[in-house]
């Protein structure tokens, strides 16, 4: 039984919401960088502009909203008490936001001073976040919700992967600013592997086990999958690391086998989730289901491209893999989930401040009108193929893709902001300042 949510200890509205509002702002910033630098950005994943945009996505959008969700979700869904969630949320948010901006600008300039600033800010912000989560796991080790054990385990694997990603990232900045003779390419590949297949994919899958049955009203995932898929994935990542070029144990055939296993795990997850969504008890798809479909289709695409890269090592293919996984799969899933989480939080917090029976508690459909969210979905759906066309140097698409991303992210920001402003209006009316909630 995965459907278990508790609300006894919900951090204040602003603590998670500031992460969720920042995510589309970083997406808009990434779009502006792509628009400004034009087709040159798309030469390969190693172009400074692309490295900058990649980190605006992975840190500014994905890590930003995932960190916000964890600060919000762990106490509510899993009875894991994070110490001082509100000041902690603010500190992590500020360090993550400023660190991401420094890193994005550092790649563009490139500036050693900014790289070191980014390393300090991100190292501190993510370090505090990881420490607080692990402290929460330890403090709540006896009272964790039984029913959600598989998801908690997923979060622990995911946070462990984030730790490895951060250490590798800091090592990369050090190696970049103080040449050490390390293989930067092999180290970067490991950093990307742990960040994307570990931190992002494991968390996304682990959270899906909980939220797809709950919010999309599907059957629950088979226990065999929730218990085994992610530990196996984590072991694959460990083996991949040990047998990578960086450790000197590189054996081609073993590496290729691991690539296929990784792709297979992603395909198994995609098919299972697809089956659950197909059997939804409500036939008409809501906006989050539409985003899940886009996310799963993109994950399937990534799972096909990953083994293909073993055969054809083309820069365009590498870019396509990144676009499908980061933009198509992870960002779309988060985008869809934000449309569930933010209105839900606004409703719950509104109920606390509005007098009972006053009739002033807003309805979900008024907090975030579905039609508006669906219009943004169509923009996101167009952005993914446009980005792929830009990666394959189709003329005109570098600008078009960036413009579509700008509009899609702008619409997401506006939709979330108008939901939050409903709470702000009520808070003002009933004379309770937002920050005390």
């Amino acid at each position, binding site marked *: 039984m995965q459907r278990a949510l*508790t609300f006894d200890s919900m951090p204040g509205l602003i603590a998670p919401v500031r992460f969720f509002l920042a995510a589309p702002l970083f997406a808009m910033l990434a779009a502006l960088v792509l628009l400004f630098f034009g087709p040159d950005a798309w030469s390969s994943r190693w172009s400074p502009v692309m490295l900058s945009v990649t980190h605006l996505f992975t840190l500014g959008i994905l890590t930003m909203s995932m960190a916000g969700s964890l600060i919000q979700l762990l106490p509510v869904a899993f009875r894991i008490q994070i110490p001082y969630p509100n000041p902690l949320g603010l500190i992590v948010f500020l360090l993550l936001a400023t660190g991401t901006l420094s890193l994005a600008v550092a790649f563009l300039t490139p500036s050693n001073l900014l790289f070191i600033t980014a390393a300090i800010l991100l190292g501190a912000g993510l370090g505090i976040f990881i420490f607080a989560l692990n402290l929460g796991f330890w403090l709540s080790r006896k009272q964790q919700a039984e029913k959600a054990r598989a998801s908690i385990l997923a979060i622990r694997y995911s946070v462990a992967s984030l730790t490895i990603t951060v250490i590798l990232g800091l090592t990369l900045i050090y190696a970049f600013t103080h040449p050490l003779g390390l293989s930067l390419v092999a180290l970067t590949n490991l950093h990307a592997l742990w960040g994307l297949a570990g931190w992002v994919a494991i968390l996304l899958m682990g959270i899906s086990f909980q939220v797809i049955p709950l*919010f999309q*009203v599907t059957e629950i995932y088979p226990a065999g999958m929730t218990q085994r898929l992610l530990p196996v994935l984590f072991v694959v990542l460990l083996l991949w690391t040990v047998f990578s070029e960086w450790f000197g144990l590189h054996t081609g055939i073993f590496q290729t086998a691991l690539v296929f296993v990784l792709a297979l795990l992603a395909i198994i997850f995609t098919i299972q989730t697809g089956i659950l969504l197909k059997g939804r008890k409500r036939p008409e798809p809501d906006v989050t289901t539409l985003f899940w479909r886009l996310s799963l289709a993109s994950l399937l695409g990534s799972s096909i491209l990953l083994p293909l890269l073993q055969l054809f090592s083309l820069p365009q293919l590498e870019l396509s893999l990144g676009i499908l996984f980061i933009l198509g799969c992870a960002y779309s899933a988060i985008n869809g989930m934000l449309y569930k989480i933010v209105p839900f939080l606004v409703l719950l917090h509104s109920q606390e401040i509005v007098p009972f*029976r006053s009739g002033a508690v807003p309805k*979900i459909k008024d907090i975030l009108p579905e039609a508006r969210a669906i219009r943004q979905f169509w923009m996101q759906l167009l952005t993914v193929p446009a980005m792929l066309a830009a990666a394959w140097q189709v003329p005109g698409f570098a600008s078009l893709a960036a413009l579509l991303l700008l509009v899609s992210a702008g619409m997401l920001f506006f939709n979330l902001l108008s939901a939050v402003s409903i709470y702000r209006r009520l808070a003002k009316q009933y004379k309770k300042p937002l920050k005390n909630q």
Partner: protein
Amino acid sequence: MNNDIQLDVRGLPPPEPMERVLELLPQINNGEKRLRMLIDREPLPLFRILESEQFEYSIRKQPDYSYEVIIWKKA
């Protein structure tokens, strides 16, 4: 009690069950009727609201892992 208002919110995603219950609460506010609901999960956020608004409730787990919740006005 035959007088109970019946509400089946199984299969509805959050927070629709809570929205439905809040709409019906005024009908049991005079203490004559109770509200009997069937739901897929323990509606913990609802309990917090019920407690603060002077309602009492009982909860029973069903064999199919859904829950029966009965709500009535505090005497």
